[in-house]
């Protein structure tokens, strides 16, 4: 990973590394270390006395039905966001990859939602889903369907899933399109000459060749659904109604920032760190051939 020809200076490289390492130490390692340390502590109600409680915070988390419920909600939510965002993107990418006129224009028209903040995407969808000021919400209530995502947990979950997936489609679309364009035309032509129908060509040739892209996007989308959708949930439902959209991140935020529960919030942070480490490890194990350490 190093060049053969290098500069002999010894002091200079430390100086060059200083800004990044300083920021990393103060804002990454210190807080992460503190999270681990605090997760073994408990403060009394007044924040005066702190005692070491071992794994008690973790045991309490695992035994807390509300925590398990938010874990379940996170899984359901992440599954649907990932499934929806990836399948729509794949469909659109397959169509845009056909050699038709205006393919570039479609690409431009589909990539800009990438630039929209999750919280702003949520605000956009308010005007679709809101029971009074939203297009669809109002229509549903007009035809007799009681639609209000602020009251009905399932409807709240549908709303945050759609808003989150909508934003992620363009990202997936870019990668699927790049993946499709790197498939050699000769492979497809060979299959066509052998008489395979377009559908068969897709499932037996294109889809398997796309699997590295698909797998990579799977990890990215799960990470997105776990962590980056905080803004969507905060803007649309604030975790409600009755905690129906409280994901693990949202709960860590409420316990840490609002309830100021030091021990429990830290324990939750540690659990989340483990989740990220697992996701990253899976990702790198898979693409390690492309990464040179």
């Amino acid at each position: 990973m190093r060049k053969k020809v290098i500069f002999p200076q010894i002091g200079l490289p430390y100086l060059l590394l200083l800004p990044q390492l300083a920021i990393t130490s103060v804002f990454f390692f210190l807080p992460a270390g503190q999270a681990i340390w605090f997760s073994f502590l408990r403060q009394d109600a007044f924040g005066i006395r702190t005692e070491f409680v071992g794994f008690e915070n973790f045991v309490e988390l695992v035994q807390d039905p509300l925590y398990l419920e938010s874990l379940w909600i996170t899984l359901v939510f992440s599954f649907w966001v990932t499934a929806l965002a990836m399948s729509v993107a794949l469909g659109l990418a397959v169509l845009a990859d056909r050699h038709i006129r205006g393919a570039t224009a479609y690409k431009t028209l589909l990539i800009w939602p990438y630039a929209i903040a999750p919280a702003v995407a949520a605000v956009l969808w308010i005007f679709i889903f809101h029971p009074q000021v939203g297009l669809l919400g109002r229509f549903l209530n007009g035809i007799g369907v009681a639609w209000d995502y602020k009251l009905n947990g399932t409807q709240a979950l549908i709303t945050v899933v759609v808003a989150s997936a909508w934003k992620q489609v363009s990202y997936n679309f870019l990668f699927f399109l790049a993946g499709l364009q790197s498939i050699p035309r000769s492979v497809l032509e060979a299959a066509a000459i052998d008489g395979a129908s377009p559908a068969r060509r897709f499932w037996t040739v294109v889809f398997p060749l796309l699997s590295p892209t698909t797998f990579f996007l799977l990890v990215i989308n799960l990470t997105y659904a776990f962590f980056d959708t905080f803004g969507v949930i905060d803007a649309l439902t604030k975790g409600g109604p009755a905690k129906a959209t409280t994901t693990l991140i949202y709960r860590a935020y409420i316990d840490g920032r609002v309830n100021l529960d030091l021990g429990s919030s830290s324990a939750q942070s540690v659990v989340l760190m483990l989740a990220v480490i697992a996701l990253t490890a899976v990702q790198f194990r898979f693409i390690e051939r492309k990464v040179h350490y």
Partner: protein
Amino acid sequence: MHGPVATTKGEAIARAEEAAERADALRQRADWLTHAILILGVALFALPIWIVLMGSTHDVATISRGEVPLLPGPYAIENYVAAWTEGSARTTRVPVSAMMLNSFVMAILIAVGKIAISILSAYAVVFFSFPGRMLAFWAIFITLMLPVEVRIFPTFKVVSDLGMINTYAGLIVPLIASATATLLFRQFFLTIPDELVEAAKIDGAGPMRFFQDVVVPLSVTNMAALFVILFVYGWNQYLWPLLITTTGDVETIVIGIVRMIGSEADTDWHLVMATTVLALLPPVAVVILMQRWFVKGLVETEK
């Protein structure tokens, strides 16, 4: 004897032509269908934006009644001026211009800061040999696994202990360490031929001279790509500004919109819509204008 053969040949050609025509027609129909579905997809994608764009040109009564206008109304100038200069009078009272300025400062400083510190540390790791080099590399690499979302409370505590709540520094500095940018630059530096370094050394150029005259100019495309991605990243931050801004002074526009909604009965929906349009313009413009670099950079950083 020749007759029938010629006829058969002719027939064969005719049949082949017919088949080709049929295939063409089929193909044309398929192309047509492809366009139709893609246009539908694009329209569905754009619908939420269209509604907000049109809604931002109507008065609050129209929107509160739930008419959800799909065509422009007469209040465009009033709404945008009101949002820009005063903000939502009934909820936050922070003018959108102030929030936009905060977002701009944050997004640009995050993008530039990340690029600057990453290119320096990647340069150190690739072009020098010193004790602790691998340790430094891994220390940077491992931050990939610690996004701010998983360090919410402890990072907030560190920033508040440093007295950086409600300051630009608190908003920006904790976000400018970037493993992704460092890895991208490192990957690129490894492709710079050794001969170039050798030639520079023979010419008597020191490491900083080489950095300035060779490495930086060669990295311009990578910097442009990273700038797009990081500008969007900085502009779109939500959780971090939410944690550390408690007053309007350093509030960013993404936070501002959500605060404008407040309790729903009091919401100035028309101003929320105008603000939303203003909030998504800069990052969308950056992505569309710099599309070429952006797509290249995105695909490469994630490799």
